């Protein structure tokens, strides 16, 4: 009694089902084009998982996750762009050896902040550290001063707007509204082949599982319970001797780091990065992926990201008008009728049955009585 486990049997089953789906079922049943699409959907799952921690557990709604997704994506795109802009392939430019969009904007040398992105090691570090550091600064500024709730949401949204306008406005340094395009090789290896698509897909799934396990560890730790507690009674947590701001900053940074990994994986799989993944609209869509999956469910977030994006592709191509209606109604419906999303529906209709079935399967599981909110990742 009272022993905590990292994963209940129920969680384990959920992780296993997802692993089978992503590692076996989808790769075996889909052609490489579609698998690449799924891979891109999964990059949003990173963001959604981070949002489960921030928003679902911690009650911090960030409407600026696109900022971190974008920063991660741009950091890698800058490296790839420099690699494909060697003097040989850019010899027709007036200044060979710099990215094409800089040349178009009459830049004659590489800006200083682009220099370090010649190194893959630096770029990979930047993918993780730049967004995390940025999140840390925002977090310190806001949470230390007890800005939360809707104010935090509005200010993160404003930050997303600012970054988008900045990227679009500074064409010469950022590629402007088109973004950083035409990325071809990674250390000389062509990233546009079918084989590369397969590799990136499996790397993406692998990283997603790493993030999921980290998130699960956080959820099951005392920190995870403090987050839930904070969401309910912030003052009580403070007067139990905890520095509430520190916990919020931490979870916000984790969310930012996850989003950044997703952004970088997007750049790799799509071959470009643009401000259209940074701004207000994509950022708030990321929230709906999380909400559809269930804001308290890590695995639900993955399914939410997959399903909403799938619907977007299917609907968006055949009935573009219907799609905005559907998306709008999805926001309204999820919030008003299914605040716990798909995971809530699962809990309501299947959760108990599966739990009983699991109990019968082996010796009775004595690890945990599944309580609604602690019921784990399902």
């Amino acid at each position, binding site marked *: 009694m*009272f022993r905590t486990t990292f994963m209940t049997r129920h969680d384990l089953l959920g992780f296993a089902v997802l692993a089978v789906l992503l590692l076996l079922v989808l790769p075996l049943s889909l052609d490489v084009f579609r698998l690449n699409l799924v891979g891109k959907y999964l990059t949003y799952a990173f963001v959604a998982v981070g949002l489960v921690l921030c928003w679902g557990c911690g009650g911090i709604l960030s409407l600026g996750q696109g900022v971190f997704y974008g920063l991660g994506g741009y950091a890698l795109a800058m490296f790839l762009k420099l690699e494909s802009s060697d003097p040989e392939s850019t010899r027709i430019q007036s200044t060979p050896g710099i990215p094409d969009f800089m040349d178009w904007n009459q830049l004659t040398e590489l800006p200083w902040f682009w220099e370090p992105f010649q190194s893959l090691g630096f770029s990979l570090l930047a993918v993780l550290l730049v967004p995390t550091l940025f999140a840390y600064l925002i977090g310190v500024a806001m949470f230390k001063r007890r800005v939360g709730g809707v104010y935090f949401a509005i200010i993160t949204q404003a930050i997303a707007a600012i970054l988008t306008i900045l990227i679009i406005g500074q064409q010469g340094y950022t590629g402007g509204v088109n973004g950083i395009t035409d990325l071809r090789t990674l250390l000389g290896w062509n990233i546009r082949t079918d084989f590369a698509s397969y590799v990136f897909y499996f790397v993406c799934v692998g990283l997603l599982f790493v993030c999921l396990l980290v998130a699960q560890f*956080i959820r099951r730790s005392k920190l995870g319970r403090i987050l839930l507690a904070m969401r309910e009674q912030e003052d009580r947590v403070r007067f139990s*001797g*905890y520095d509430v701001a520190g916990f919020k900053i931490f979870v916000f940074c984790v969310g930012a780091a996850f989003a950044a990994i997703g952004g970088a994986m997007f750049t790799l799989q799509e071959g470009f990065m643009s401000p259209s993944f940074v701004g207000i609209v994509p950022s708030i869509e990321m929230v709906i992926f999380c909400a559809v999956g269930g804001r308290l469910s890590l695995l639900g977030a993955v399914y939410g990201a997959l399903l909403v994006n799938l619907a977007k592709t299917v609907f968006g191509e055949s009935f573009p008008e219907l799609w905005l209606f559907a998306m709008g109604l999805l926001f309204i419906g999820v919030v008003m009728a299914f605040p716990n999303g798909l995971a809530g529906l699962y809990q309501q209709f299947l959760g108990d049955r599966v739990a009983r079935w699991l109990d019968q399967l082996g010796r009775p599981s004595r690890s945990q009585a599944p*309580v*609604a909110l602690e019921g784990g990742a399902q």
Partner: protein
Amino acid sequence: MSHGSNTDFVLAVEGLTVSFDGFRAVDDLSFYVDDSEIRVIIGPNGAGKTTVLDLICGRTRATAGSVRFRNRELTQLREHDIVRAGVGRKFQTPSIYDDLTVFENLEICYPRGRGVFGSLFFRRDQAVIDKVREVAATVLLTERLEEPAALLSHGQKQWLEIGMLLIQDPQLLMLDEPVAGMSITERRQTADLLRRISQGRSVIVIEHDMDFVAEIADRVTVLHQGRILAEGSAEAVKQDPQVIDVYLGH
């Protein structure tokens, strides 16, 4: 900001003042609390009782004056540092975590792993479980450890919150109306509880019910308009004509 002198008191409040847009909710207040003393603060609505507790525990910043807890100045510390210094505070309405179990409610307040990474790698070992059980027994909640706290009765929620403070083992415990909304039996049990837990620590209680006050108080401080109107034993303040005038009624 003036600083108080070193004293033998557990808590020395001197010249404490706070004003909100010119309105002085607490005005040049001084009082002292002894070791193992139960001090009750009474007074009419708006006298500044809750504000005094807020000032001591750092929820509200003082405009002037000093709060010294075992000769350590508290007015400049942040809330969680004040808690870690040994001051516990219970709020007027029970503030517990409805979604967590009683066990988890108590465990969260266990004074170990309070940093971000400390809590990330916090292990629920036997020492924690034993301590939680011990405190749960003190506040009469042993039977309900595994239930979500939302299912407790109002009185039990109040006890749970007291338990959440006890597990921190504070040297000074501040309770804002701990028996509000309790039945007669629960009141009696709470009075017993307070007497038990004041062994070795000081307790400040805000209360309205004069019978309850008489039952538990070592000394009573009467506040009126942010100032002290009277101080002394429960019997003495009951007889005080000024107190009868502004608070108790004839």
